[in-house]
């Protein structure tokens, strides 16, 4: 399957994803749970993202309420060993505007 990642997403040497900031799903994104995880569609960019893990869906869905992305991952059961993979996945989603930083209240 041919896909493309945006340059700042998952590549080594790119700006790392800040797990300790609060994040949220972009309001123009529609989330559709699937057996394999989820489909995310951004009505503004018209891009589709496939989340290939139900746990990642849990993380993404709970970002808006969690004090930080790290906390959202922890609450979703992501282990320390798995965290870098989830961080990089979140970085990809941030680069394509599926998620964005939340203004802290």
């Amino acid at each position, binding site marked *: *399957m*041919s*896909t*493309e990642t945006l340059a700042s997403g998952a590549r080594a040497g790119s700006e790392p994803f800040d797990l300790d900031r609060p994040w*949220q*799903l*972009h*309001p*123009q*994104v*529609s*989330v*559709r*749970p*699937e*057996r*394999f*995880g*989820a*489909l995310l*569609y951004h*009505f*503004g960019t*018209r891009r*589709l993202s*496939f989340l*290939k*893990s*139900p*746990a990642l*869906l*849990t993380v*993404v*869905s*709970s970002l*808006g309420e969690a004090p930080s992305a790290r906390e959202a*991952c922890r609450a*979703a*059961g*992501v*282990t320390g060993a*798995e965290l870098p*993979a*989830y961080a990089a996945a979140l970085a990809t989603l941030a680069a394509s505007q599926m998620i964005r930083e939340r203004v802290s209240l």
Partner: protein
Amino acid sequence: MTAPLGTQPAGTQPAGTQPAGTQPLGALPLVEQFACGLDAPICLTWELTYACNLSCVHCLSSSGRRDPRELTAAECRAVIDELERMQVFYVNIGGGEPTVRPDFWDLVDYATAHHVGVKFSTNGVKITPETARRLAVSDYVDVQISLDGATAEVNDTVRGPGSYATALRAMRHLAGAGFRGFKISVVVTRHNVGQLDDFASIADRFGAQLRLTRLRPSGRGADVWDELHPTAGQQRQLYDWLVARGEQVLTGDSFFHLAAYGQALPGLNLCGAGRVVCLIDPVGDVYACPFAIHESFLAGNVRGPGGFAAVWRESELFAGLRQPQAGGACHSCSAYDSCRGGCMAAKFFTGLPLDGPDPECVKGYGERALAVAAGTSPPRPSGDHSHRSRPSGPVPVSIGAGPPASPGLPPSGRALAPSGRALPPDRACDQSPLAGFRPG
């Protein structure tokens, strides 16, 4: 950033409470997941009407005349309600010419108000400065103008006199209204494959995005495919051009059979028919895809008791398509994993077996198979809504009072130069297989 679409919540409840780590990361390749089908399409084509003001020679839906059994506005809204419940992200509305339905604009508004994005394909006939302005202010509606030649000469041979002018005028109106990034959609043929750079220039001129799609032998396309489909050499030329442009040029994933050349083009690179996409036709019939309008690919009708959802989820046809597909005659080919045997509709309507090579197989196996099949009659498309005034066969006809772009000219039925004057007739020795075909 404009307001969000309706009142769609930004997220949903998590799908489940599986602890992280119990699901092996990337367990099944995504393409395999999709090949097994989804609970709802990701997007789909919806042909709103078979009526059309044009009679393009290659029309995949054999459109022209409205079908009296067309879905009513209320039935269309019911379909949209279902698509919303199923969370279908967007519909590509086409036809025929969808804008000739009087309720077209209302249905588009209804869809976007119900969280279903819309892109509609049009020949541009109803894109006026007013409608263009209306479209420009909506983030949830996209427009795709059909164009099959970078010049009127090439375009109008396929789409009829005045159609080039109509399309360009629509583009001017969209650009003038500030609509950036509308799509110009081209069906690649033997006669326009040499104009790819020119198409790109037209897109640049109007701030649009170019889209190239594959000609299939579907609908009226069955009659002209032999003469119009690109040669093997041209196909390679097209592939190289597309690879060089990456994601700048869209393809609707319609050239996934070219992945066998090497690097795959952007997209899922698999046949989505019945798996992630499908067609709803003007009378509510649900087909695996718009290139496969034939009983063999008819899954059901939205007017049935369970509506569209029941057809998508329960149809035997779709269940069959969602089974793992073996390579059949292609299984031992090193390219099979890339091309996956190519396009089902292309094989079907050229009379080739579905478990064998695509007629345009880049390794040439398709040509060989066609030679073997020569002499046998391929299946004919189901239904024909073509305008009756055209003779049977691939003759471009413009219906109505004449070319919209040149109201002062009589409906001579002759191909027009961009200036609006009729072109001289083709010479008898003209290479084009459509030479001399002019609307009668």
